[in-house]
């Protein structure tokens, strides 16, 4: 009988878990008795995305285990909530804090790091915290509940993550950094300045060159303020230290293993420590004098250690690590790769800095400018993947490399295609997947979606930074394979949205089922159902909750309200042009009070009432309708608002009645369903107080009439509108807008805003002007007639629901009970209510509405 050997793994963090996965992949869990000891209460989780918990991700979703019983299923003993306290190398026994004795033949240290807390007086005591584990996160949340201002000491990557977390917890947040810039390790001064500007704009205070001398506490022990070497002070209630990490090498030190000068258990290129029976991996390992605070090097070590244990024929080994990073901090994109600080002798630097646009890009080139050595990107990292790969694969630079960072006419620099990369190029560093492996997976599995690449190769499932490259590779491979990049809506329709629109119009199809039967297959999905619902509504304008249409509507359209994180809804009555009477304002207040709704003035010049349960929606609307309100379609891909400025009625500069025109336009196009939402505005003069040039269609008054601008956009990718026609009469504005909107509805893709549609339009504004103003296609009369049909068949969707008992009956929390949904629980905040968080829900009683 073969006696099984014992393997003990200390630490069930990200790298420890990856090591276990590699063991299983190599079948080693069968030859060894594996015991894994983790000090934390939870099994391995994704620390990299820890902050997402503050954004609402449930902690369970961070678990790294493929299935909850993964360890059990593979016969690995997982001990949680206990720590290895000592290692007896002579006897080869590890002892845990609770007294378990674990004999080993091999032992792997995967103990990670701990946050470093500088020896500042006052650091011990309530209100001083660190940020590394889910438990730390709970502690921060608890401490934040009683605090108003929070300070993060340390302006590095983790410090900024942490500042964002405090901000999300509602604290006034400050970052204190010893160095003269933020993220001193990754970005240079110029990039740091832009980063600081962006972060300050988010309301987070940034204090550089600050050496914290003490944390001053009041008599009751609570924190009062921080003091600094330059004699300045900063009042605060809570402090989180993020001043760097240190390897957890105490166990190794105590049993006499060699450690590095700056800490970390010394390992060779096979991850073996000074004791051949002990290996170290992840952040605790020190290779060639340094430790690595990123997950990708740790994952590589996990593979190396598994190969070492297996005695693999062609073992992986450590050859060096790429410490490039790309991340989004508080919505600010930051990338840093290679020799970011131009430390290579003779290195050449080209940089582009736009302080107004808040973009910074720098490339570090070899002395002959043929190779890319590194770079820094702040504000826009869309070119990170391509540049990083160009560096790793020594791709020859174009004659003028500055073209790679200077904005081209479209606003984005000219890119380097993935085509220029060799097959060996490592695309996903988290999971060590090469371009060749991805291309092969695409070809072998006939993959057509990035999601499939993720599940087949794991690429893209770590930090996610390689996903844009995966998309490019997929596109390239499909093209190479002669697969025409399909513009098919989804698996159910082999047609584009534009083709389906024509089929619906030409054949007079009135329902999804009729279209599916003739031109599709299967039962439809969450992509095609709402898209077809929108087409049907744009063409025939029937009520969206007709029984045939109801099952097509997306979350919000299905209940004619916007669904919120807790399953309640918000109600936004229409306020055309933003003009509202005192009586209507009073009714809004009364309704909100009666139903216990949270009130907020929106960015669209109207009022949003939040927190209504399904069965309350018709009751709320009964009262709003009685006061003359109509649906605001805040839930639909439809016309939202036509904002207005006060214009000539009141404003001393106004040259036309902007409010009057805005109301006319809003009433004309209300209820119009379109591929994406539509927004508009009318300004009374060139000062543009209504921001018409950021709208899908916007009108600016001139002393000769009106200028019509189209295809502007705020939101994720702001885009300035372009002038379609100048000095128009009101009637011309209406006619051209009718044509413009219907032409867009005919030809756009699903969920394509006018700005994106316009960018795709060959011939640009000249072509659009020919079609809309000059009627070059001879379709103007048709487009106007189609719009006339929409205008003539308008109904207030909510009135129809309220007046029809059958439709009202669809608005119930429960089909077999009139009870309110007990899972909806509100808590007070700033004098109103908000949904309780999961933690609050379990401890709090509901606020009576």
């Amino acid at each position, binding site marked *: 009988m073969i006696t099984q050997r014992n393997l003990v793994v200390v630490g069930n963090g990200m790298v420890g878990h990856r090591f276990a996965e590699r063991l299983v992949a190599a079948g080693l869990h069968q030859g060894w008795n594996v015991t894994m000891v983790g000090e934390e209460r939870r099994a391995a989780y994704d620390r990299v995305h820890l902050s997402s918990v503050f954004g*609402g991700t*449930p902690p369970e979703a961070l678990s790294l285990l493929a299935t909850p019983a993964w360890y059990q299923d593979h016969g690995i003993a997982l001990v949680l909530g206990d720590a290895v306290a000592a290692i007896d190398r002579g006897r080869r026994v590890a002892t845990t804090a609770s007294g378990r004795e674990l004999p080993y033949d091999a032992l792997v240290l995967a103990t990670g790091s701990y946050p470093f807390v500088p020896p500042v007086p006052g650091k011990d005591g309530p209100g001083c915290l660190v940020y590394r584990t889910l438990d730390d996160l709970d502690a921060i949340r608890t401490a934040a509940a009683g605090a108003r201002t929070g300070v993060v000491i340390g302006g590095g990557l983790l410090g900024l993550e942490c500042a964002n977390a405090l901000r999300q917890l509602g604290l006034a947040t400050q970052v204190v950094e010893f160095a003269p810039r933020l993220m001193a390790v990754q970005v240079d001064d110029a990039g740091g300045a832009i980063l600081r500007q962006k972060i300050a704009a988010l309301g987070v205070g940034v204090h550089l060159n600050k050496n914290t001398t003490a944390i001053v506490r009041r008599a009751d022990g609570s924190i009062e303020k921080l003091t600094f070497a330059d004699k300045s002070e900063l009042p605060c209630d809570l402090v989180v230290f993020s001043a760097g990490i240190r390897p957890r090498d105490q166990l190794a030190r105590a049993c006499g293993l060699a450690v590095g000068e700056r800490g970390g258990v010394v390992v060779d290129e096979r991850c073996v420590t000074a004791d051949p029976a002990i290996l170290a991996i992840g952040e605790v390992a020190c290779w060639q004098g340094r430790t690595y605070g990123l997950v990708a090097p740790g994952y590589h070590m996990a593979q190396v250690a598994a190969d070492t244990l297996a005695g693999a024929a062609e073992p992986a080994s450590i050859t060096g690590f790429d410490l490039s990073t790309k991340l989004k901090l508080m919505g600010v994109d930051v990338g840093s790769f290679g020799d970011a600080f131009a430390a290579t002798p003779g290195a050449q630097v080209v940089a582009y800095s736009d302080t107004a646009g808040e973009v910074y890009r720098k490339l570090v080139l070899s002395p002959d400018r043929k190779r890319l050595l590194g770079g820094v990107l702040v504000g826009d990292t869309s070119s990170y993947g391509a540049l990083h790969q160009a560096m790793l694969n020594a791709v020859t630079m174009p004659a003028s490399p500055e073209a790679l960072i200077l904005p081209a006419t479209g606003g984005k620099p000219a890119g380097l295609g993935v085509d220029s990369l060799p097959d060996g190029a490592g695309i996903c560093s988290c999971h060590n997947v090469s371009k060749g492996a991805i291309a092969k997976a695409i070809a072998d599995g006939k993959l057509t979606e990035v999601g499939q690449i993720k599940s087949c190769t794991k690429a893209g499932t770590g930090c996610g930074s390689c996903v844009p490259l995966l998309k490019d590779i997929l596109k390239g491979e499909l093209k190479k394979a002669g697969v025409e990049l399909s513009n098919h809506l989804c698996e159910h329709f082999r047609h584009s949205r534009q083709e389906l629109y024509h089929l619906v119009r030409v054949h007079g199809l009135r329902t999804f089922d009729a279209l599916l039967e003739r031109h599709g297959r299967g*039962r*439809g999905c969450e992509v095609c159902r709402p898209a077809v619902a929108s087409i049907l509504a744009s063409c025939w304008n029937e009520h969206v909750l007709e029984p045939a249409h*109801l099952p097509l509507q997306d979350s919000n359209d299905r209940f004619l309200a916007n*669904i919120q994180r807790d399953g309640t809804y918000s109600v936004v009555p229409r306020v055309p042009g933003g003009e509202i009477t005192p009586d209507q304002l009073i009714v809004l207040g009364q309704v909100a009070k009666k139903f216990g709704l949270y009130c907020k003035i929106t960015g669209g010049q109207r009022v949003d009432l939040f927190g209504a349960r399904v069965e309350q929606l018709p009751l709320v609307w009964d009262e709003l309708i009685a006061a003359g309100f109509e649906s605001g379609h805040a839930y639909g891909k439809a016309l939202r608002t036509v904002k207005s400025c006060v214009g000539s009625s009141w404003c001393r500069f106004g040259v036309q009645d902007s409010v009057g025109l805005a109301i006319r336009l809003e009433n004309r196009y209300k209820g119009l369903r379109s591929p994406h939402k539509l927004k508009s505005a009318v300004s009374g003069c060139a000062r543009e107080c209504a921001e018409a040039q950021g709208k899908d269609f916007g009108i600016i008054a001139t002393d000769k009439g009106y200028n019509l601008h189209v295809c502007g956009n705020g939101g994720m990718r702001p885009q300035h509108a372009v002038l379609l026609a100048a000095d128009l009469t009101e009637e011309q504005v209406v006619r051209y807008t009718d044509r413009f909107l219907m032409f867009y509805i005919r030809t756009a893709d699903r969920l394509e805003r006018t700005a994106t549609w316009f960018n795709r339009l060959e011939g640009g504004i000249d072509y659009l002007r020919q079609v809309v103003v000059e009627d070059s296609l001879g379709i103007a009369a048709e487009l106007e007639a189609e719009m006339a049909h929409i205008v003539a068949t308008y109904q207030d969707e909510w009135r129809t629901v309220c007046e029809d008992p059958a439709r009202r009956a669809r608005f119930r929390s429960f*089909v077999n*009970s009139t009870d309110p949904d*007990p*899972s909806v629980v509100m808590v007070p905040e700033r004098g109103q209510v908000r949904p309780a968080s999961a933690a609050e829900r379990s401890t709090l009683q509901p606020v009576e509405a």
Partner: protein
Amino acid sequence: MTTTSSWTPVCRLADIVPDSGVCALLDGRQIAVFRVRDAAGEHLFALDNRDPFTGAMVLSRGLVGDKSGTLFVASPLLKQRFDLRTGACLDDAAVRVATYGVRLQGERIEIAA
């Protein structure tokens, strides 16, 4: 599947618009009931109403459809899809919601939970 527990009537078939869902309250438990058609005919499904990704009680309000023949409901919040037959999440193999027995007795829909 529960075979021992008893069947409780919750609503009539006509209370559910074809290809959509409703929520039934059973001893304080929220159960999403769907009525969905495919080539084989009309089917009833019963799933836990709780969206495991957000903790909100909303699955009954999701869109239904099929992915290569597998009937699913997509959460109305963040759009993850769940197999109506098994409760397995199609977008995350680690996640699954509970399913319940459901049957049609004449015009009445009954649930075993």
